[in-house]
């Protein structure tokens, strides 16, 4: 049984803000414990900024086959699936491209560094490509070919939100919403009026920030944007969404794309791909039946596949 009373916990993780909402007040502590354990495990597997992470060790392995944990195996498999389903527009081998742009440390430190040159400078060209990742899922081994360097930022956080929501709902029996830096996953029985989500450019914006409020009852909702995780490099503004075909930040007609899908992972996969695809994303999302809200740089909005009507004056 659920009630309309929703309990909240907010904390910092992965260099961003996490929010837990549960429909039964007495279980928020248990929910937080489940989330803490899972998130710590995922961080140790795939953080690009921890020298002791499995990902850091794999990137330093010089192409040698590397044994990995089941969690890291799942994370890589999810990233490769996203690459396959987007025709390579969401590619996990963009690690070297991000490092070349100066995103070689926690983002707060990148922003604090201002215009300081990165440790590896200059354009790196097209990324090696996801087919250079040889994953033996059953044997839990992986090998990176042709100098590929992994970054799982496009899928790991969303997958973590899905896993947390799923496990908390299973163990507590209540409805749960998990937001990790704006990647939102829900599971279990939702509140009577569903989960209300303010969709905007920046996950840290106040809940009355310009945007749109929508409700979901299952699955996930994610937003990708070129406006927030952005910094200056050599006098030019760059951001973290890499176009694999160039190895450079995507030059998109969209500043922000929000997508609802059956899971948060799929929502984030689609929203990231939409930024990379630019104008072609409209037809792709429509044909895929994915409800989405796409905001141009001038604030005008397009929607697809049943995303609710948006007041045009509300987005800018």
């Amino acid at each position: 049984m659920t009630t309309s009373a929703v309990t909240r916990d907010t904390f910092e993780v992965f260099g961003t803000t996490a929010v837990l909402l549960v429909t039964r007040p007495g279980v928020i502590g248990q929910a937080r414990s489940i989330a803490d354990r899972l998130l710590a495990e995922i961080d140790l597997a795939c953080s690009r900024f921890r020298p002791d992470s499995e990902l850091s060790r794999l990137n330093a392995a010089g192409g040698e086959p590397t044994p990995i944990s089941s969690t890291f195996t799942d994370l890589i498999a999810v990233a490769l699936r996203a690459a396959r389903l987007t025709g390579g527009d969401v590619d996990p081998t963009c690690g070297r491209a991000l490092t070349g742009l100066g995103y070689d440390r926690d983002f707060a430190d990148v922003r604090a560094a201002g215009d300081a040159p990165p440790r590896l400078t200059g354009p790196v060209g097209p990324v090696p490509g996801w087919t250079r990742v040889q994953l033996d899922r059953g044997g839990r081994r992986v090998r990176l070919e042709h100098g590929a360097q992994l970054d799982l930022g496009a899928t790991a956080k969303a997958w973590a939100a899905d896993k947390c929501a799923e496990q908390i709902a299973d163990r507590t029996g209540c409805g749960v919403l998990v937001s990790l830096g704006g990647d939102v996953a829900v599971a279990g029985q939702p509140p009577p009026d569903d989960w209300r989500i303010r969709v905007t450019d920046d996950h840290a914006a106040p809940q009355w920030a310009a945007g749109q409020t929508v409700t979901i009852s299952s699955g996930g909702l994610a937003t990708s944007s070129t406006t927030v995780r952005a910094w200056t490099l050599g006098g030019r503004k760059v951001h973290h969404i890499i176009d694999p075909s160039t190895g450079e930040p995507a030059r998109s007609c969209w500043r922000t794309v929000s997508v609802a899908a059956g899971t948060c992972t799929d929502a984030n996969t689609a929203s990231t791909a939409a930024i990379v695809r630019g104008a072609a994303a409209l037809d792709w999302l429509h044909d895929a039946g994915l409800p989405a809200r796409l905001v141009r740089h001038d604030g005008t909005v397009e929607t697809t596949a049943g995303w609710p009507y948006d007041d045009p004056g509300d987005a800018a």
Partner: protein
Amino acid sequence: MPQHDIGAAVQSRDLGMAKITALSWRAGAAGVAVAGLLTVVLAHHPAAGTVPAGHRDDHGSILIPAQPPSQAPGAGQVTSGSS
């Protein structure tokens, strides 16, 4: 009709039938090959990588939501934006 003309006509007919049969086999084989190729191509097309709501396919499809979001008034319980 003289006997030798009938024989020639029958021979021509049999030859024509044999050619048509061979052509039919080749056309059929080509059709099967094209259909197989189309199946492979379409299976890898991103737009084909979706499944109806409620189906879970961890291997080959982006999962669409059970229902699209609904408009709601006022503020949200959480904010979805880039981090």
